[in-house]
């Protein structure tokens, strides 16, 4: 196997980094399971099957949204740390500290919603947190504190990653392969980074941007809540909360796309080296990922027209590098490859399907006239659930499976392939119901669904149960192999 395809360095030097990465991935995925149960509760309530009070529905909804975004991203960044660690020296200390801070942020959010009763939605769209007739200002502040800690943890992770990559390649521009890029592939004097390393640099930059946007957003909110300023402009607030949160959510799919570059070659037995299209596409994603958040503001007519159009252009544009380079590239890698099929490769395949299908739904909704009749319906929920369930999460599960396979001597259980396909079926059905619901103009974020809407949610519940069964099996399979995988990262002498 080529050096770049190894997970551990020969001297085991990145063992502790791998352990930290495993902690990120396991913590993230366990949290996803818990948040998923909350999601199931939401659909069950909307189906009229087990009705909870609107107060609790909106609290659960708030926790589910923020928790899922944070958890999937956590698993994803853990994966990318593992993926680059064999060729880039990372600091386990920085990773552990960032993890503690990030998880404390999650803790704050759980406390704010479940104990404090905050139900302002994950978007904490100003001025709603201040107008909580069912929650106190204190719980809104706890929510902001949670976001601040998560942003801080993410910032620490991304800054550390970027510095490590720059050090490892002799400068940031070399980590981004700029000389190679701007010479159209002719100048190869610099050692080229592995695709996953370049991707790591890209997402680190955008992660820093997202975390910074979060700080910019939260500081005036804190100031307003403590009456240091009288009010915050609603349009400014919406732009920044989405620049923060939407980018964080969006980041997950790009981080996990990096994992595809890192691990898919092991199954297709074909290398996926750095090429000019890869360098070009991923460098383009740095600005493009930050542009498209404003497709959530089309209905805010007060938004300047330039930003509205930039949102549409940005949304269309960002699809091109991802599709042409990453997705076609992955398909080409698989095509007639004699690929080794297992739950990891199945999850990679499912993720590719979902990324494109969800992307189609997103592109349609990013078209302003279409958005008029789909904004804030379940169509929106459909597109991002597809990106997560059958995109980022599928890729993250695939990568964790890959890591466990590489480290643990124990083989996968026999039902894992079937469980992975079941996940695909469950996921596809689940998101299709959302798309159909959106096509029928069913609004999103309604605690109570009209009788004519409930049958759709009932069908969705059935598919969620399939997802749950699949994930239960996969979790059990991976869980029983986790200890041996963990041990394999330690040096033979027993030192850690």
């Amino acid at each position, binding site marked *: 196997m080529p050096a770049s395809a190894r997970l551990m360095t020969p001297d085991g030097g990145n063992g502790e980094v791998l352990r930290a990465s495993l902690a990120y991935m396991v913590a993230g995925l366990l949290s996803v399971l818990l948040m998923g149960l909350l999601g199931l509760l939401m659909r069950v309530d909307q189906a009229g099957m087990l009705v909870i009070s609107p*107060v609790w529905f909106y609290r659960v909804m708030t926790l589910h949204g923020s928790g899922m975004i944070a958890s999937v991203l956590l698993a994803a960044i853990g994966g990318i740390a593992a993926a680059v660690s064999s060729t880039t020296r990372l600091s386990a200390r920085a990773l552990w500290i960032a993890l503690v801070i990030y998880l404390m942020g999650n803790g704050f959010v759980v406390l704010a919603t479940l104990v404090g009763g905050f*139900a302002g939605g994950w978007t904490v*769209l100003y001025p709603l947190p201040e107008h909580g007739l069912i929650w106190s200002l204190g719980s809104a502040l706890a929510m902001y504190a949670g976001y601040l800690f998560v942003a801080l943890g993410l910032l620490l992770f991304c800054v550390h990653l970027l510095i490590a990559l720059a050090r490892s390649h002799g400068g940031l521009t070399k980590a981004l392969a700029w000389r190679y890029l701007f010479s159209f592939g002719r100048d190869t004097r610099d050692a080229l980074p592995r695709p996953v390393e370049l991707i790591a640099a890209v997402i680190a930059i955008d992660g820093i941007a997202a975390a910074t946007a979060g700080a910019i957003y939260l500081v005036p909110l804190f100031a307003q809540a403590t009456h240091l300023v009288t009010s915050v402009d609603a349009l400014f607030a919406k732009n920044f909360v989405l620049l923060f949160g939407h980018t964080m959510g969006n980041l997950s799919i790009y981080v996990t796309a990096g994992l595809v570059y890192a691990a898919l070659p092991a199954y297709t037995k074909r290398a996926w080296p750095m090429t000019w299209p890869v360098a070009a596409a991923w460098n383009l994603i740095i600005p493009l990922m930050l542009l498209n958040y404003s497709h959530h503001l089309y209905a805010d007519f*007060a938004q300047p027209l330039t930003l509205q159009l930039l949102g549409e252009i940005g949304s269309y544009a960002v699809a*091109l590098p991802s599709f042409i380079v990453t997705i076609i590239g992955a398909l080409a890698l698989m095509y007639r*490859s004699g690929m080794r*099929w297992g739950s990891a490769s199945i999850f990679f395949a499912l993720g*590719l399907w979902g990324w494109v299908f969800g992307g189609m739904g997103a592109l349609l909704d990013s078209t302003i006239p279409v958005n008029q009749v789909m904004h804030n319906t379940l169509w929106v929920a459909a597109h991002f659930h597809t990106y997560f369930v059958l995109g980022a999460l599928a890729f993250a599960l695939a990568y964790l499976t890959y890591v466990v396979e590489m480290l643990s001597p124990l083989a996968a259980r026999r039902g894992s392939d079937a469980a992975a396909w079941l996940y695909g079926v469950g996921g596809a059905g689940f998101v299709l119901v959302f798309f159909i619901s959106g096509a029928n*103009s069913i609004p999103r974020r309604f605690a109570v669904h009209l009788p004519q809407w409930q049958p759709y949610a009932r069908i969705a519940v059935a598919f969620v149960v399939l997802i749950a069964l699949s994930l239960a099996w996969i979790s059990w399979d991976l869980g029983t192999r986790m200890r041996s995988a963990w041990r394999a990262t330690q040096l033979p002498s027993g030192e850690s």
Partner: protein
Amino acid sequence: MSPHVVFVTLIVLGAVWTACWAFVLVRSRYPLPFEQLERSETTIRLVLLGGLAIVSIVLFAVTIRWLPFPNTRIARVGAPQIVVRAVGMQWSWEISRRELPAGIPIAFAVGSRDVNHDFAIYDPGGRLLAQVQAMPGYTNHLVYVFPRAGEYTVRCLEYCGLGHHTMSVRIIVSDR
């Protein structure tokens, strides 16, 4: 723009994609050295890049004409003859006029007394027709022409707290 048309578009495109995806998966069982595929891969990439870029540009150009913002709408349907003030608040709508005629441009001046809401017009069959956000500190104008008579429902489509799902109001549209 009908949501159902959008959905059918998604399904058609999705089916094409799924077929290609399934094809790749199935064919993975018949190995071929990668070098033999590289040229066709590059060709496919360039063709798709060109095609998608053209489609995107055309789509973008077309959509400009159909923007829902007041200026573009007025240019298409004519100046509004009736102005209706709508103010959202937790958790109800205050509308200055609930009986409106079909077939002529109406401007809804939408504002909010407290938090963000969304003024969304649903037709009698439950289909979403048009919407605009109600933002505190701003008045947004939605210009709309009701296609036919009937009982339309305005729902709040921006999460605004405990009573978000209860915020709706009826508009009776009659023929002139």
